């Protein structure tokens, strides 16, 4: 998968809830294959204060139309300005970047756990992991109902469970409080997770205890996104490794968590 920097066309910008947007970008050439966990690095020109690109995971790919989509959550100034871009505008993107989740084996039963902006790679993975929907279980956590994004398009690819900190949707509490997690964890062959560090660490800890293979996707701060600046490192058992090239997906065995 050769990395490129290209001007992509914004073909859709759709607000999903109060702070999440779905952006669809179209390439002028044939898209390379893109896998769940991979990300793209976006230049945000329409703002005075933004200097570096901003990384976002791929949410879905449509090879026929040469488009892929992103789920952008407004966090600071960059993500905010990005969501004000209009359909028809061009955006410079470096892609595809990073490694991807290890796809499950046939017959595996997998648990996907997403929180916050970590939802995107989980949905993508659910969709293309190649397992029958009954083997794919997805827990999505958020602060409250309004923070959840609509996952209708992904319903067919798994069983979805929700948690909210205020109990306004699904179970009250964190993802690790959901019965599927607390009671059924040992029934899964693999666990995948992406979201806030605290959440991923809690998930990883339980998975490690139960000896279940677990992959996490890290969101370390990045300058380049393609392995030259060495700014995005995570301490691993083999020393500092770049999250943008050795990751963003790491098996928890490798981490010093």
């Amino acid at each position: 998968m050769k990395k490129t920097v290209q001007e992509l066309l914004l073909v859709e910008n759709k607000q999903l809830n109060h702070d999440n947007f779905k952006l669809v970008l179209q390439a002028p050439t044939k898209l390379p294959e893109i896998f769940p966990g991979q990300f793209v690095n976006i230049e945000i020109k329409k703002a005075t204060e933004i200097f570096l690109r901003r990384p976002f995971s791929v949410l879905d790919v449509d090879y026929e139309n040469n488009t892929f989509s992103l789920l952008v959550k407004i966090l600071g100034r960059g993500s905010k300005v990005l969501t004000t871009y209009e359909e028809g505008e061009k955006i410079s993107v470096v892609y595809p970047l990073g490694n991807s989740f290890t796809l499950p084996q046939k017959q595996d039963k997998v648990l996907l756990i997403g929180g916050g902006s970590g939802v995107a790679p989980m949905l993508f993975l659910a969709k293309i992991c190649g397992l029958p929907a009954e083997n794919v279980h997805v827990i999505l956590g958020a602060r409250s109902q309004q923070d959840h994004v609509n996952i209708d398009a992904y319903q067919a690819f798994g069983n979805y469970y929700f948690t909210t900190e205020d109990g306004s949707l699904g179970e009250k509490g964190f993802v690790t409080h959901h019965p599927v997690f607390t009671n059924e964890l040992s029934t899964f062959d693999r666990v995948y997770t992406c979201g806030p560090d605290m959440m991923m660490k809690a998930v990883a800890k339980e998975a490690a205890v139960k000896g279940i293979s677990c992959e996490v996707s890290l969101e370390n701060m990045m300058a380049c996104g393609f392995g030259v600046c060495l700014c995005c490192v995570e301490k691993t058992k083999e020393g500092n490794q770049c999250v943008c090239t050795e990751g963003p997906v790491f098996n928890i065995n490798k981490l010093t968590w």
Partner: protein
Amino acid sequence: MVDLSVRIKDLVFKNPVLTASGTCGFGEEIADFVDLAMLGGVVMKGTTLKPRQGNDYPRMAETPSGMLNAVGLQNKGVDNFIQNIYPNIKDIDSNFIVNVNGSTIEEYIELTERINELDKIPAIELNISCPNVKEGGMAFGVSCPSAEAVVKAVRRVYDKPLIVKLSPNVTNIAEIAKAVEGQGADSVSLVNTFLGMAVDANSRKPVLSTITGGLSGPAIKPIALRMVWQVYQAVQIPVIGMGGIMNATDAIEFMLAGASAVQVGTAIFIDPTIPTQIVEGIDSYMEKNKMHSMSDLIGGLQM
């Protein structure tokens, strides 16, 4: 097509655009984006004798028109370079320059000697200006006596072109440049990063694990340009300019101010095709302004 070649001693660069150390890995990392043979040179990631893990995360902070880094010379050491990297780059038709670092003068010497054995490394850049290491680095580059001592020692064991990379964190950079020229440096490159700091008002903590880091990017360009101009007037050896170069116009400004060549650093993070775009941009500028060789441009500032 204009003749874009420039020289340092007898080393020819096909054009005056190099990538800066620490911002292009060993070249291979940006090969997806650019044909490395299109570049005048590639200054590779700072190398040390022994492997180094560098500093703890977080190592980076975005700042207005720039960034702070506190990488701290993470690298796998010279043995790894010789075994695993050198073979891949040695036949690429550009100048691959090793950025040489040490905590002590002895380390600088030993590392230089190792690199000296590599036929296809035509020059070294002696980094006496890294602000992100506890020992050595910038400490050598901020006073004339210590800068002289390193250069003198390395010069003794190295006959190929020796470029010395200067720190901007000094009162008088021209003085340091003259001092290293006096010890036989064949060229000076400047600037390395400015010592800076970022604070997170919410957590009330420094953003970087090391508290301070090195500032690079367009923010520093006006200061870097002034320094290149001052050094150009003070020394006879070629000056390599850098600091915030984002496009051909920036590069041309540095060359007008006296740089014989430029390095492109942080810009690569924004767009790794910028260095080659700059080569093209300089070419069209020269044509448009009816300049025939780089000597028309270098130091061509009219007062």
